[in-house]
């Protein structure tokens, strides 16, 4: 099998903060009744995380489980585990109406990291979201837009943010983020 290409080929940019594509990971979109115990068990079992509440993400090691909407979760896990995970979901949720799909290649995953305030300042140039530590603490997950494209943001911890956007606009998102992180563009709002 040939090398699997990520949308940004692993690009990164160092400025006020670091903007870097995250290594390829498996992603599964799962729609269904996310309030059931079965759903909780199968999803948390696959990601190794806790179950996120509304507007939240749970992270543990390589695993991530994000609340996308009242009937949708995004599972992130090592890419090679996706086929097995889909089988497992199909089996455990066999009797429940649901939709599970491998979307590992549908999106780009970008990490924005550095001094916490600088990261928040950088993102706040592009997204109409309150990124203050009070409004957006670790574990927050928010779907919004990044300049002109849809994106979802989360806070993994101080100075450590992630975002996903669609694959076709990864280059645009990366350029916009790099531009926002230009060393001469200090804002100092979230300082």
């Amino acid at each position, binding site marked *: 099998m040939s090398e699997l290409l990520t949308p940004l080929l692993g690009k990164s940019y160092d400025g006020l903060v670091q903007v870097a594509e995250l290594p390829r990971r498996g992603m599964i979109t799962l729609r269904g009744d996310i309030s059931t115990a079965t759903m909780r068990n199968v999803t948390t079992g696959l990601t190794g995380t806790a179950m996120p509440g509304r507007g939240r993400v749970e992270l543990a090691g390589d695993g991530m489980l994000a609340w996308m*909407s009242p009937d949708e979760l995004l599972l992130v896990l090592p890419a090679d585990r996706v086929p097995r995970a889909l089988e497992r979901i199909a089996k455990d949720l066999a009797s429940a109406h649901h939709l599970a799909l491998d979307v590992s290649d549908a999106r780009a995953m970008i990490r924005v990291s550095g001094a916490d305030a600088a990261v928040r300042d950088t993102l706040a140039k592009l997204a109409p979201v309150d990124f203050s530590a009070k409004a957006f603490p670790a574990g927050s997950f928010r779907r919004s837009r990044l300049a002109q494209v849809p994106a979802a943001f989360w806070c993994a911890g101080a100075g450590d943010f992630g975002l996903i956007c669609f694959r076709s606009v990864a280059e645009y998102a990366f350029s916009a983020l790099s531009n926002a992180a230009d060393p001469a563009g200090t804002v100092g709002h979230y300082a």
Partner: protein
Amino acid sequence: MLILTCPCCGVSAEETEFHCGGEAHLKRFGPDSSDSDFETYLFQRQNPRGVHFERWRHVNGCGKWFHAARCTQTLEIFGTYPAQTTEPPQALRDRIAEKRPGWTQESVS
């Protein structure tokens, strides 16, 4: 630039995350309906100067449709509620009536 609160994901966000879908609670008329009913369903709109029930989608967000009651003169938003209903919740109607004495909801045709 409006702020809307999506009742589905709980996020309060600016208008650019949303898309407005026009008047809410329209009753669909299908193949057996009269010309007049079908025209009303597709085109005739209340377009009130005042309280308007309307559909919104959280397009740059959770993707869900919901309804909002909004004043088209002041842009006040009286409340938002899930789209899976044929009429506004009573509590919301009461709240509007309290704020806009004399207001009654036009018959939803």
